[in-house]
């Protein structure tokens, strides 16, 4: 089975598929971060968020991040990085970051690294839809060339610990 699952698409995220991608007899820890559209941002009531991406570069960025984190924490490490596009209602899953490793410390380190880097580097934009009918594109982090630096709430689910 490939060691990375990478998706950037309008297809709804299937957590069973993520769990399957992370399953490995060598890995006693599996850690899945799920980003979900929440109903409030900076005091405004959100009804939905539209996500768009520069898809080819987004996929390439996620693959680069998977390789970076594997180099950082060491193999074996299975990685699942999924970002959904299109208009999502409150409660729908927008982002999944899944990792599995022999021990929990690699998974915690990898998961944290991945979400923080995704926030800085992934070419994805969010337009929030508000209860009064208005919509706004959110500001974010300016991208830099390599070598140069509706909101979601996240819940971390430890699927199993087999240590």
């Amino acid at each position, binding site marked *: 089975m490939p060691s990375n699952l990478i998706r950037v698409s309008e297809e709804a995220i299937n957590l069973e598929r993520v769990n399957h991608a992370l399953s490995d007899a060598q890995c006693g820890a599996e850690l899945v971060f799920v980003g979900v559209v929440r109903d409030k941002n900076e005091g405004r009531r959100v009804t939905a968020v539209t996500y768009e991406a*520069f898809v080819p*570069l987004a996929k390439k960025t996620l693959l680069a991040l998977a390789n970076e984190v594997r180099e950082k924490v060491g193999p074996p490490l299975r990685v699942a990085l999924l970002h959904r596009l299109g208009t999502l209602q409150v409660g729908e899953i927008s982002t999944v970051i899944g990792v599995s490793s022999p021990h929990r410390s690699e998974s915690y380190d990898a998961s944290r690294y991945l979400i923080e880097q995704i926030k800085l580097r992934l*070419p994805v*934009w969010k337009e929030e839809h508000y209860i009064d009918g208005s919509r706004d594109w959110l500001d*974010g*982090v300016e991208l830099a*060339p390599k070598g140069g630096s509706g909101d979601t709430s996240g819940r971390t689910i430890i699927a199993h610990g087999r240590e």
Partner: protein
Amino acid sequence: MVIEIRLFGVLKRFGENGMLVLEIPCSCSVSELRSRIKQALAVRFPAEFHTALVDRAALADEHQVLSEDQFITDSPNLALLPPVCGG
């Protein structure tokens, strides 16, 4: 040469169907392209466009964010990327 630049997010409204079409010299740096984009949009959208929107955006192709001193010598899949907020 004529190039098409894909626009995203807050910049999308300045293109047609999210694309900006520009004529540029055959050998044009990213820095020069950025200036030409700002000039073109300032002319087409004098009331709405602010140069900071392009100053804060990155020019990229499918493979990477481009640095200002790189040259655009043919017509790759270019995109103008506002500050990102994925995840």
